[in-house]
């Protein structure tokens, strides 16, 4: 021990290597390779986030310097902005209906595909396609055509003598066309459900069928509980996606959120405030409220998960 201490003790007169130098010598090349990511993260994500947090406490029109406004923007939002309330209502409605319906539909299709049918990879790819295309401008334009007064849906209904409304210009239906569009993009949760279903051991079902459990009971008592980790994951991802949804509403309503604000998604309203009225400070505050909302929702989901999500290990 003593010998070792003598050998490793810093000797007088020899300058100590600095901590930074040692880190550089040890991990320098690693950090070098990480540099592009660091630039992207700090320059394009964290930097803008911090500056938007600052801007949310200012009035800023892009042309003149930001003026400090304290919590004015936030106060206005909650006390004196009917459009904020309207956009929040629309977004909540969209989230509450589109997410469960989309998940249910995705699970249903995944269960159909999980029955070992032929050509599974082809179906899987076909069903996944809308998820890749769904948020695109082209699909939104197509959607507008399908649900227009003289669109495909009404042409189909006319076969049965039904005169359908113009779905997208009727405030009672316009949001529902967007919900249907969201459900149509069921591909990515479906793929995850399919992977989850594959994880459930076949002998669980065999044991249940020996116990006399019907397919229905097997679904409720075995499939669904064992799939809860995947349901949980999909629900969180899809809810965040739904809160962030922007393109379809923007295209279908021509950026207005009409008719009568019925498709005024929160993000669309934020966009209008930022790039229509150049109220960057207010738009930043809106963005932070959305972030807080999503964070609260996610935290709530995680807190309740221990009561309904069954992890195997």
């Amino acid at each position, binding site marked *: 021990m003593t010998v070792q201490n003598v050998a490793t003790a810093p000797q007088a007169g020899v300058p100590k290597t600095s901590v930074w130098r040692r880190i550089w010598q040890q991990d320098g090349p690693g950090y070098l390779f990480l540099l592009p990511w660091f630039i992207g993260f700090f320059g394009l994500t964290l930097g803008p986030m911090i500056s938007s947090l600052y801007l949310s406490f200012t009035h800023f029109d892009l042309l003149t310097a930001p003026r400090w406004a304290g919590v004015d923007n936030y106060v206005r939002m909650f006390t004196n902005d009917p459009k904020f309330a309207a956009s929040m209502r629309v977004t909540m409605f969209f989230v509450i209906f589109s997410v469960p319906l989309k998940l249910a539909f995705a699970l249903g299709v995944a269960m159909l595909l999980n029955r070992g049918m032929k050509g599974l990879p082809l179906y899987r790819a076909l069903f996944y396609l809308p998820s890749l295309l769904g948020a695109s401008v082209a699909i939104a334009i197509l959607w507008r055509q399908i649900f227009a007064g003289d669109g495909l849906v009404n042409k189909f209904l006319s076969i049965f003598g039904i005169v359908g409304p113009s779905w997208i210009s009727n405030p009672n239906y316009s949001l529902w066309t967007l919900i249907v569009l969201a459900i149509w993009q069921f591909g990515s949760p479906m793929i995850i459900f399919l992977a989850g279903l594959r994880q459930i*051991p076949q*002998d*669980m079902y*065999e*044991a*249940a*069928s*020996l*116990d*006399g*459990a019907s397919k229905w*009971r097997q679904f409720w*008592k*075995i499939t669904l*509980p*064992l799939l*809860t980790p995947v349901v949980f994951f999909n629900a969180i991802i899809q809810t965040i996606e739904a809160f962030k949804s922007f393109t379809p509403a923007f295209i279908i309503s021509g950026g207005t959120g009409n008719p009568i604000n019925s498709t005024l998604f929160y993000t669309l309203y934020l966009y209008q405030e930022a790039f229509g009225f150049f109220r960057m400070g207010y738009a930043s505050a809106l963005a932070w409220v959305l972030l807080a909302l999503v964070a609260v929702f996610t935290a709530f989901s995680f807190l309740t998960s221990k009561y309904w999500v*069954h992890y*195997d*290990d």
Partner: protein
Amino acid sequence: MATSIQLRQLKKAYGDVQVIHGVDLTIEPGDFTVFVGPSGCGKSTLLRMIAGLEPITGGDLLIDGQRMNEVPAARRGIAMVFQSYALYPHMSVYQNLAFGLETAKMPKAEIESRVQRAAEILKIEPLLKRKPKQLSGGQRQRVAIGRAIVREPKIFLFDEPLSNLDAELRVAMRVEIAKLHNDLGNTMIYVTHDQVEAMTMADKIVVLRAGVIEQAGAPLELYNTPRNLFVAGFIGSPKMNFLTANGEGDIVKTASASLPLGRSASGATTLGIRPEHITVTEGSGAKFADAKVDLVENLGGQTVLYATTTDGQALTVVLEGQRHVELGSSVALYADPQNAHIFNAEGVAIR
């Protein structure tokens, strides 16, 4: 009342591939029958066909004289214990045991008393509130058996239930399952690839190979009078020694000795002698080979020799007690002709 099972020309095919080739078997009420054989012999498939988990391609399955081919699994009066236990991970032990009874819409009080009774039999009462992941392998195994017991089935099926347990626990559970059979008296079918399990537990062993029954009978019947080389080699541990031989009259000639059998040996091409039936002591039986000792294992109660005959055939010898045998030494091997088995060129035993 125990239940009989009959298989009549039972067949199973996946497309063009036939895996069970017309099996005939009768299982008496209350029998503990063990299906044994190497991997891929069709023993599990046969069990699953009886359970109703695998459709039957041909032939008849009769339970208590009634044809069951198309009857759904749940209505065959069968409970099965799976190799993986197949416990529902999100349910407590109690819920796992009660699941089948709840499915059958049994009154709550009856469910409770049945679960309690099964838990008592298997000594798992303190575990009822736990989830399967909180249990050891042996405890999970008990719960899996408990899930079968609560339903009070006519027939129990076990699909390699002990293969995931360590050696010590396997022996303990083996004893418990045998005890359970004695207590309940139900007809049980047990699948294993472990011939020791088969020998120790079975009333009747069914040896399968490539979807065909090679021999079915009481454990000692299979041990003493194996019908062919496969059964002779499969039953018994260490496995039977086989030496190339030549039967002339009532003598079997090996490379270095002649063994008078006292019965006709004509047509014999293989001599089979179990390791425990060989001695190295002159005067105890007749000499049948000379061999060089390659390896000696002293197990305390037994001494195991691994040797090679003069014509290069490997042999195992199990000697009682602790014996000192020099490595590399040559020994003469003796056996009682009564314990010698002979087989013809097709591998069929000559009696």
